[in-house]
């Protein structure tokens, strides 16, 4: 049999029992942590452990998150062989991480987005709000922070825009195409629809909307718009203690909340923006706010972490979605999708907060 002495058996038994006990303790620790279940219930994908980034992030720092392009919940990019996480989802996960990480002392959210779906914009707004309860969040606007992009931004503690940034576009939109005349009169094609209720084929491109359809859609739009306006008002007035100033801010916001686009400078006047400046100014402000909130002494700027890019197999083997799409849309200007109505470009999405 195996060479052994009686004295080795207690050692082996001890090792086995201690290891099992440690496993039990690890399990208890993980399962009793309240955040863990929330984190994974939200469908967050597992992330590979990066030792170098762990070493780097031991010290207090600021976190930069970049929200670019369409705010949608679906896969990112414009298609491709491999499903990618949308930028909005990546930012939401980044916000969750920043909220939980005690070494993150503030979040700089750089936004360059025309908006997106209502639900995803609302999710981002809620995520920013949650982070904002624990640590300062500053938004730095790029070229465009409109509609759903602004919906996300208004939950931040401070909004900084460039003078020429295009922002606001506070409104909700549903669009469709009415192809009935083209199909019926020009092509002689007659669509046949069998439906369970009179609104089941609402916004169908095969027929002209009825007044009842329009009224129904309008209630939908009005409801979402009211939520948008309330969210912007709540976000932009939460730090104003004086009632008169508060009313003045509400009035100035409502004056521009008709879907119009404003510049960063006009946004400052309307109370949609706190300060004019670039990303450097935003970093400086965030630094001040973080130091004040967490009582960090010293004049040095806190390091700004840009976050790691998730490993993308498709990109790694040269099949990134952008290269594929640029081939498919060769007739359109570089980097742009054809200007089709939203309903045609994104058939699964209905309600939009878009510029």
């Amino acid at each position: 049999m195996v060479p052994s002495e009686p004295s080795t058996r207690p050692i082996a038994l001890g090792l086995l029992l201690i290891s099992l006990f440690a496993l039990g303790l690890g399990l208890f620790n993980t399962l009793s942590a309240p955040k863990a279940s929330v984190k994974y219930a939200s469908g967050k994908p597992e992330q590979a452990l990066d030792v170098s980034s762990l070493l780097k992030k031991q010290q207090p720092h600021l976190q930069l998150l970049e929200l670019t392009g369409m705010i949608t919940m679906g896969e990112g990019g414009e298609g491709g062989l491999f499903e990618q996480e949308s930028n909005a989802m990546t930012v939401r996960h980044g916000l969750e991480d920043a909220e939980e990480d005690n070494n993150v002392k503030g979040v700089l959210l750089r936004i360059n987005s025309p908006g997106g779906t209502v639900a995803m914009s609302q999710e981002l707004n809620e995520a920013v709000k949650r982070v904002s309860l624990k640590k300062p969040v500053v938004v730095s606007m790029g070229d465009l922070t409109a509609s759903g992009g602004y919906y996300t931004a208004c939950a931040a503690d401070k909004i900084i825009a460039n003078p020429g940034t295009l922002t606001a576009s506070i409104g909700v939109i549903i669009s469709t195409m009415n192809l009935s005349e083209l199909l019926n009169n020009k092509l002689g094609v007659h669509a046949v629809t069998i439906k369970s209720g009179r609104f089941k084929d609402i916004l169908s491109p095969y027929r002209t909307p009825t007044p009842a359809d329009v009224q129904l859609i309008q209630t939908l739009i009005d409801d979402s718009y009211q939520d948008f306006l309330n969210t912007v008002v709540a976000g932009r007035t939460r730090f104003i203690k004086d009632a008169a100033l508060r009313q003045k801010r509400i009035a100035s916001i409502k004056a521009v909340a008709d879907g119009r686009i404003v510049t960063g400078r006009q946004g400052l006047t309307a109370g949609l923006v706190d300060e004019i400046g670039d990303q450097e100014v935003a970093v400086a402000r965030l630094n001040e706010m973080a130091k004040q909130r967490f009582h960090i002494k010293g004049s040095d700027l806190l390091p700004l972490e840009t976050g790691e890019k998730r490993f993308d197999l498709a990109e790694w083997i040269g099949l990134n979605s952008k290269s594929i799409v640029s081939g498919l849309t060769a007739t359109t200007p570089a980097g742009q999708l054809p200007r089709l109505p939203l309903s045609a470009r994104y058939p699964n999405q209905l309600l939009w907060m878009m510029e």
Partner: protein
Amino acid sequence: MIKTRQSSHFLNGLLDSMYGILFHPATTMAALACEESLPFGLSVFWIAFVSGLAPFIQLAIQGGTPTFLWLAVPLSILSGLVSWGFVSILIAGLAYAFRQPFYLEKLLTLSGFSTIPWVLMGFTLLFKASLAGWGTILFVLFSLIIWLWTVILYSMAIGKTYQMHAGQVLIVLAMPFGMSVIWMAWLVGFIGNIQQLVSP
């Protein structure tokens, strides 16, 4: 009475094999290779035990709601036993192709014991559970050490079974990997050719 003696013999064998594999692997494996009845049963137990722990380890690392743990444990044990058998048959088959004896039971026995270091994963979780920041780094480091330890023991198991030296074991381990790459390239080339033939 006989039953008690048998279970005590099994428990002693379990503890002796654990201590021996962890601290005197070469001597222990040589001794296990000469044994007849108990070692194979012990190796099955170790594989089942280590595979059964896997879902708990995963859960402790990642968190989540253990709704299907009752199903995950038996499935993990089953998949552990199946993959253990599959890899062993692959290596035994390779050895047989090169005119070595098949020795499947011996290989299964020794390779089963090579998984013993995985039992120590609990220790590594202690680092993660109790030390913030550096604890995670230590957890990763010790997990890597356990993984490397198991690979070395697995290589020793192959070496002891077929009386091979380290270089030969490395070739045996590298061959299936190399062949799978070649087969994959052939398969891609074959499909590509078929595609060219059928496309207009």
